[in-house]
């Protein structure tokens, strides 16, 4: 027996007004990362431990640079939603709001930093 009123039960796109968009977004980014991550791990693993010239040479080549850019760009769109669901579960009120802002800001900061580094190396 479910004690739910018609109003509380999902109508249309539900009380949040964006339906399953978040879930679809997570599925999409997860699928992209599933293909990209093994390639990135190989590139990064090989570059780590090389001298400065070797690292610059690696990330100035098109495929390592594009894969690295894509991995961080997509991962930093995936991360704030995942961390967001944790915050929704474990943080309340003001703490949740500030932590959400922190997580979203950190994601944007990491994306911008990686893209800047890749552009600088490619130059």
């Amino acid at each position: 027996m479910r004690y739910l009123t018609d109003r509380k039960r999902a109508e249309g796109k539900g009380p949040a007004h964006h339906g399953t968009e978040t879930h679809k977004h997570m599925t999409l980014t997860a699928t992209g990362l599933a293909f990209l991550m093994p390639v990135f791990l190989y590139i990064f693993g090989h570059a780590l431990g090389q001298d400065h010239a070797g690292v610059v040479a690696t990330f100035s080549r098109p495929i390592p640079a594009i894969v690295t850019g894509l991995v961080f760009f997509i991962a930093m769109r995936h991360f704030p939603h995942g961390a967001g669901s944790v915050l929704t579960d474990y943080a309340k009120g003001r703490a949740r709001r500030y932590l959400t802002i922190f997580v979203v800001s950190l994601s944007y900061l990491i994306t911008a930093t990686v893209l800047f580094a890749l552009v600088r190396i490619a130059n």
Partner: protein
Amino acid sequence: MADSNRVDRPLSPHLTTYRIIFRPQITSFSSIMIRVTGIGMMFGVLLAVWWLLAAALGPEAFATADAVATSWFGDLVFTLSLLAVWYHYLGGLRHLLWDTGRGLELRTVELLGWGCIIGSVVLTILTLIVI
């Protein structure tokens, strides 16, 4: 009447309830670990981003970041992050499988949970051998 309903209820997914009432379960453990690994791998991300930015800025900046990234501390952070990446990877594939409506029987879920744990360790060792 209304006041009697104001109880300080546990937050979902009820960590305290799980610990007190139930014995440790692979189902809840494998789910919680997705969250732990997702947030935990950010330490590896931050170190990797610092290292990449330093490489872009020049040899002097790179020398500092590379010294940390290739020290025992860097090895520890990157190895644990690698384990976290593979666990999160397999756990994510498990979610994509569940989204299709398959693999939702309790026995399958438990087996997939162990698969995530053992698989992530195996993939981490394989990756360390390959790179």
